[in-house]
């Protein structure tokens, strides 16, 4: 066990995967010599050589498209999209190709590919460094979508993503790279190195894809969250005194419906939190599933707390970000009924 930031944990996960399997190939914009703008891949080129970790031309469609070719050949590419906000040029390759290779060729060709991208806001990145496009990917059949909330999960889920035989979208909440963030932006950053969740197991700690994690037990309301919002939800529960159970979904697709169901059937109430825009967001899917599976247990209408349906603003970042005050209000409101 060692204390690591999330960046170090994902880097360590690359190291483990590359050492274990020489088919793992890592590339993306600025990923080679420099080690990526967030330094996730720092040192890998030096250690594994230029043909296993290298810089890509700035062409997201090209990065994904070539990775699909490599994956179909039998390699295991792990590619970085510099920010999730820049994945759209690669959309056709991801949606029409990576996601469907297996199905349309009846397994003749497959696509074991990991597409990593920093996601989410809270860093004054404006509309081009803050987006949370997870629902765009969960809407596509054939993709898996993961989003860790702490260093150990990041490493373990990453390793499972690399081992997975199908394409995985690996979303990295950039606001959590260096420490947990509960939405209280005035508070100084607490480093993962000083946090119990900064503890990362050595070696291969693969965490099974599709398993949620209850990060706070409670009896009165279930909060479904992922990424940065896990800490916001926990803070809101502490601050309101509502006996909330917080579930960190970790894997949006496949989804751990059993854990969600068991919790909502116990609490009878459900609040869903995400940073992405509301309309057709992943919260809508969660609400449908809870409705379909827990209707007779619900004691109050479910509530979604989300980013507003606007582009992610620069100056109004904290009015946009669904912080602990807004989540807290939802917790109180859902308890009124």
């Amino acid at each position: 066990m060692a204390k690591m930031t999330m960046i170090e944990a994902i880097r360590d996960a690359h190291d483990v995967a590359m050492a274990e399997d020489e088919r793992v190939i890592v590339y993306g914009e600025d990923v080679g010599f420099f080690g990526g703008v967030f330094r996730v891949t720092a040192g890998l080129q030096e250690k594994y050589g230029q043909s296993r970790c290298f810089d890509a031309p700035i062409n997201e469609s090209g990065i994904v498209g070539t990775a699909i070719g490599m994956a179909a050949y039998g390699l295991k590419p792990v590619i970085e999209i510099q920010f999730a906000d820049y994945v759209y040029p690669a959309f056709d390759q991801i949606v029409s190709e990576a996601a469907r290779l297996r199905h349309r060729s009846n397994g003749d060709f497959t696509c074991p590919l990991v597409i990593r991208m920093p996601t989410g806001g809270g860093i004054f990145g404006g509309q081009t460094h803050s987006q949370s496009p997870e629902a765009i990917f969960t809407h596509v059949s054939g993709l898996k979508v993961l989003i860790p909330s702490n260093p150990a999960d990041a490493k373990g889920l990453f390793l499972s993503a690399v081992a997975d035989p199908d394409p995985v979208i690996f979303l990295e909440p950039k606001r959590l790279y260096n420490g947990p963030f509960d939405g209280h932006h005035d508070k100084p950053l607490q480093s993962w190195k000083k946090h119990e969740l900064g503890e990362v197991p050595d070696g291969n700690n693969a965490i099974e894809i599709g398993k949620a994690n209850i990060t706070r037990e409670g009896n009165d309301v279930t909060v479904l969250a992922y990424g940065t919002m896990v800490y916001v939800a926990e803070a809101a529960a502490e601050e309101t005194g509502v006996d909330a159970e917080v579930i960190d979904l970790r894997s949006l697709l496949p989804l751990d419906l059993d854990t969600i169901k068991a919790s909502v059937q116990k609490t009878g109430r459900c609040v869903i939190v995400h940073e992405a825009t509301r309309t057709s967001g992943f919260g809508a899917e969660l609400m449908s599933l809870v409705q379909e599976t827990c209707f007779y247990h619900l004691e109050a209408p479910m509530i979604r707390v989300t980013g507003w349906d606007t582009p992610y603003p620069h100056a109004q970042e904290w009015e946009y970000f669904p912080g602990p005050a807004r989540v807290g209000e939802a917790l109180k409101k859902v308890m009124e009924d």
Partner: protein
Amino acid sequence: MTDTYAPLSLHVPEPGCRPGDTPDFSDFEIPRAGDVKRPPEDVDPDDIRDMAFSIVRVLNKNGEAVGDWAGALTPDELRTGLRNMIKLRTFDARMQTAQRQGKTSFYMQHLGEEAVSCAFAGALKPGDMNFPTYRQAGLLLSTDYPMLTMMNQIYSNAEDPLHGRQLPIMYSSKENGFFTISGNLGTQFLQSVGWAMASAISGDTKVATGWIGDGSTAESDFHAAMVFASTYKAPVVLNIVNNQWAISTFQGIARGGVGTFAARGHGFGIASIRVDGNDYLAVHAVAKWATERARRGLGPTLIEHVTYRAGGHSTSDDPSAYRSGDEAAAWPLGDPIERLKTHLITIGEWSEERHTQAEAEILDEVVSTQKKAEAVGTLGDGKAPSPRDMFEGVYETMPSHLIRQRQEAGY
């Protein structure tokens, strides 16, 4: 018959110089100023293919303007150009520091590349539209657009014309021919072609300019822009600013095996030229030539401005991690401000004293403007645009779901 082949290996281009190495630009071929001839505007692109491999240069080592691209600008115009470049550099330095002081979140400067956008600006006419990247603020600062408004945008304060919605420096001014900057690389290169096609469809004589960095030429949109520009002979000038670096990635990663970025134009039959991007006179002359071609319906031009990004990529970047700190000083095309200054002095139209005085005047103007902007507000000091503004302007008429969300938000 049995063939035996050696195992293949992946070719990954590497720059000649990394931290700790001594920069060496001896492979970089630089023609003498004046060597490249100026063809007529209606030249057949096929007849100037060599221009994509050479470099148009006007200012020689002694500061003289030589060759047939020279002579387009009066001393007054040159002094204005010099002042604009000094203004841009001063503005950048102040805003860069303001970011360090926490007055805004982010900044990107033009250090070493000032001539490209400042000299190009002078070749345009009212009604033309630039589709700039984040590194062509000279196209705006060289017009009558108020510097104060630019600073208000950088500070996302209550008088920011974009209401705090956009990242600092992502300006927008239709009136001043400056298309709203997106931040997503390459997208706008293609839009510039569409704007130019619209001018042709409408029977106007306006031209558009597209702008893209060396690294971003790898984007598919760059290539799509060239197809559309060549198919429809769009009245557009497509500019590549080759400042040698794309964050930590050297230009060879985007360029691959092709000799130059300009040569990309040949496959599309587009007139393609390289120009010394640190030579104010050369950039201006080539810009005039290309805009004239466009305006006369002679077709698109692809220009590669050869320059060097002397500063970091942005305030989030530390270039010492990936390139030699001596590289900027070793860059063989020099500094654009120094070169124009020397030229003006050489022709007896400027002096060290006037230069020092101009620098002081400009600094005064920038500092006093900055004070005004900071009196209005800086990022995070509470004097921000209203949160209501974030709900406005998503659509012309706010749909009911956004009205509900705005009310829910309490604004």
